[in-house]
């Protein structure tokens, strides 16, 4: 039951990605005054979208469970750390924009809180299923 539940499979992965993203934003903010530092970011949503089969890539048609699929399964979705090499408008070559970084960090915190609430709702669904409504 739990193993087939999409929510219980994806949410922990998403939590992990969001947490790593928070770590990277924290690293970016700590290096706000480091000359030549380039900001980093985490991509997870794109990977997830690919795994959900919603991408521009051409998919192989499968009509048998033994056919090879060229879309990754949900279990293989992982986040990627990328470096943002965009041009900087600062003299020291550092491209961290503190406002952008703070807003992204706050969004990320809210996303984390939302994800934990989602998984809690899921658990209470199961609790209702197991114990019934009293």
């Amino acid at each position, binding site marked *: 039951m739990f193993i087939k539940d999409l929510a219980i499979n994806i949410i922990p992965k998403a939590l992990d990605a969001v947490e790593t993203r928070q770590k990277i934003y924290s690293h970016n903010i700590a290096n706000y005054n480091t000359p030549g*530092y380039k900001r980093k970011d985490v991509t997870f949503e794109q990977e997830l979208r690919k795994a959900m089969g919603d991408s521009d890539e051409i998919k192989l048609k499968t009509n048998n469970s033994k056919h090879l699929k060229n879309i990754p399964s949900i279990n293989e979705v992982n986040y990627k750390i990328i470096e943002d090499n965009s041009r900087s408008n600062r003299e020291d070559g550092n491209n961290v924009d503190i406002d952008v970084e703070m807003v992204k960090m706050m969004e990320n915190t809210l996303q984390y809180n939302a994800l934990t609430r989602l*998984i809690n709702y899921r658990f209470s669904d199961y609790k209702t299923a197991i114990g019934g409504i009293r």
Partner: protein
Amino acid sequence: MNLNAFKIMDIAASGMTAERFRSEVISNNLANANTTRTENGGPYRRKIVTFKEVLNKQFNSEDEQLSGVKVAKLEEDKSPFRLVYDPGHPDADKNGYVKYPNVNPLREMVDLITAQRAYEANVAVVNSAKTMFNSALSIGRGA
């Protein structure tokens, strides 16, 4: 939760340490803005802090490498001293000029504000990491 939340706080703490050190150096520059005698002789030279990104190579996975920031160097500003005509000053040369430190208080104040803002940003990071950690602890509690 693989103790990442604490890592976030460690990184923010490294930023706070670095920015506080910078504030200390700025404060030292300001305090010595008019110092004409130092241990090495001559007027005080303005000090500059440079930062460096810390990558911890001890862990293999890519994301474990990021570990914040540290102070790379404390250097002296080599720019020329300020010359002020003041023949009555004990440190005046024979033409009546006194060498004052190459500290520009205006510039130091601007740097101080930058350091303060960066420090505050790091504090905000710690607070948001705390919220995240608390919400992770709430998983399964209400179920």
